[in-house]
């Protein structure tokens, strides 16, 4: 039996060599960290002696980290923030992306439409650091454009980076600004693929444009809308760290509305030093995220086998 193993190994030697770099990478950056999640059940201490030593020799505390975590207000806040923002992003992102796609597809002047599309793409290519600077040019208390405009209306300058009230709207707006230009492309491609004769038939039957959109375009887009939405729902427990860290400029007073699971974990590592609770939060996110991805992928697979992740 062992002989056939070595023979098979030999025959596949070259191909094995090809997967080697990637496999080693996955081992280091994906699978070893999985082992590292044990740290959530320990009082982790960074030892000079390296990874394995630290992992093995840190004190076992069982579920304590989780108990501490879920006793804090933070646990509720970050979960709520992560979920609510993602729900808003998914829903509003969908409405605006599809709307934009339909709008672009109906414009008469195609050259102009191309120009619009190119402009709308720009935000996607910018990093959240840059977007953070953009936001600052509007929201800066003493120099920002927004306070300046408010001044014209006799409204006092607002301390945007200290007052949490408007941040949900600001963050949603910024997210949409950055993403819908690009995500509308998916729907636009689908719309352009719709058979023109369907519309012609509808027109002959006297249907208005609005009726055509409602009865032809939208139903035909339904599959891809469902798929995109489900895939997004699978990731609903993960937030875009860049958005929530850079745009609010890490302002502490805003944490109640800007702290999401990902930023909480990061701050636990780098700032507050609460490694135990943060690792527990990370594991909590990974497990729930895993369940959600599996469920959403299962549902997607039932709808359209080819579109599932696996």
């Amino acid at each position: 039996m062992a002989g056939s193993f070595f023979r098979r190994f030999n025959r596949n030697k070259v191909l094995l060599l090809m997967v080697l770099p990637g496999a080693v990478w996955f081992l280091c950056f994906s699978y070893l960290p999985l082992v590292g999640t044990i740290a959530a059940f320990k009082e982790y201490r960074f030892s000079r002696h390296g990874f394995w030593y630290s992992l093995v020799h840190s004190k076992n505390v069982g579920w304590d980290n989780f108990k501490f975590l879920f006793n804090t207000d933070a646990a509720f806040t970050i979960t709520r923030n992560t979920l609510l923002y993602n729900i808003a992003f998914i829903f509003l992102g969908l409405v605006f992306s599809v709307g934009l796609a339909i709008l672009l597809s109906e414009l008469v002047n195609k050259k102009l439409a191309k120009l619009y599309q190119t402009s709308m793409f720009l935000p996607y290519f910018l990093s959240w650091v840059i977007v953070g600077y953009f936001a600052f040019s509007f929201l800066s208390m003493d120099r920002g454009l927004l306070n300046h405009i408010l001044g014209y209306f006799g409204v006092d300058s607002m301390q945007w980076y200290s007052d949490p009230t408007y941040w949900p709207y600001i963050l949603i707006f910024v997210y949409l600004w950055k993403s819908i230009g690009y995500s509308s492309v998916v729907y636009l491609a689908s719309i352009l693929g719709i058979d023109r004769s369907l519309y012609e038939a509808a027109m002959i039957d006297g249907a208005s444009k609005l009726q055509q959109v409602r009865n032809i375009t939208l139903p035909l887009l339904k599959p891809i809308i469902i798929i995109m939405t489900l895939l997004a729902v699978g990731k609903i427990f993960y937030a875009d760290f860049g958005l929530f860290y850079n745009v609010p400029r890490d302002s502490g007073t805003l944490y109640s509305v800007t702290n999401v699971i990902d930023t909480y974990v990061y701050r636990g590592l780098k700032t507050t030093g609460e490694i135990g609770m943060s690792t527990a939060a990370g594991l909590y996110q990974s497990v729930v995220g895993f369940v959600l991805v599996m469920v959403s992928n299962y549902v997607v697979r039932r709808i359209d086998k080819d579109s599932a992740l696996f």
Partner: protein
Amino acid sequence: MSRALTKKRDFHQITRGWNVLFNIFAAIFSFLCVFPFVFVLIISFTDEKSLATNGYRVIPEKWSFEAYEYIFQTGDTLLRSYGVTILVTVVGTLVSLLMIALYAYAVSRKSFAYRRFFSLFAVFTMLFNGGMIPTYIVVTQLLHLKDNVWALILPLAMNAFYIMILRTFYITGIPDAIIESGKIDGAGEFKIFIRLVLPLSLPGLATIGLFSTLGYWNDWFNALLYIDDPNKVPLQSMLMRIESSMQFIQQNSANSAVSLEALASMPQDTARMAMVVLATLPIIFAYPFFQRYFVQGLTVGSVKE
């Protein structure tokens, strides 16, 4: 024939009225997408003192090249960050493409006995993530990459999603006949890969390569986690460090004039915005030409066949 009759309108089109309305919406949104960059550009050409009195204005009271002159004199920090970013992006993209292409090719070959295992090995990583902290622990304590440029390159190198896309591309796009003909000619797997498969897969590689390039260029997160050494700070990360104060530039500039100069007399705000402009310009110039690939990538990714 009167003009009215000869002016034919495609009966698919929406009415004039709606077209104007749609154009207005589209134009407003397009403007909103582009305006912030233009605004920051304008701020960078504003006189620092008029910023103090008037704040950021779309039409400054007084224009000035001060910020750019300052950067020109003290530019070593900016240049170094650019250098790091370019190095990381070029090496990163090449390393990444190589690793992904090889892995995807091997996994696409029906003759590969361990094909299923390695496919699952890759796909599973898309489902369950170890998380930020365990990854940090592995990178710093096991791989000892703290303050190492490779900490900027390696974490972004592999992506299971790209592997699956490329694998599908190989399976559907590269007929077995081609590979068989290579084998008949006595070529080994590597030769077949380099001579026959690689040239055929250039479009797919270009798309993945561009996504990879964008990812590396814009990355600030890995630097945030792993880099403290000011000489290894990439562009975006440098911009983060000067957000509140130009101290980072001052402390790390080799130019003695900069270190001696009082913080107050530097054109702080405008220089900061000028740095943002200079860091963003390459993207602004390049992206319209590569739009097509990103569009392709998105539509392929979402309609995996």
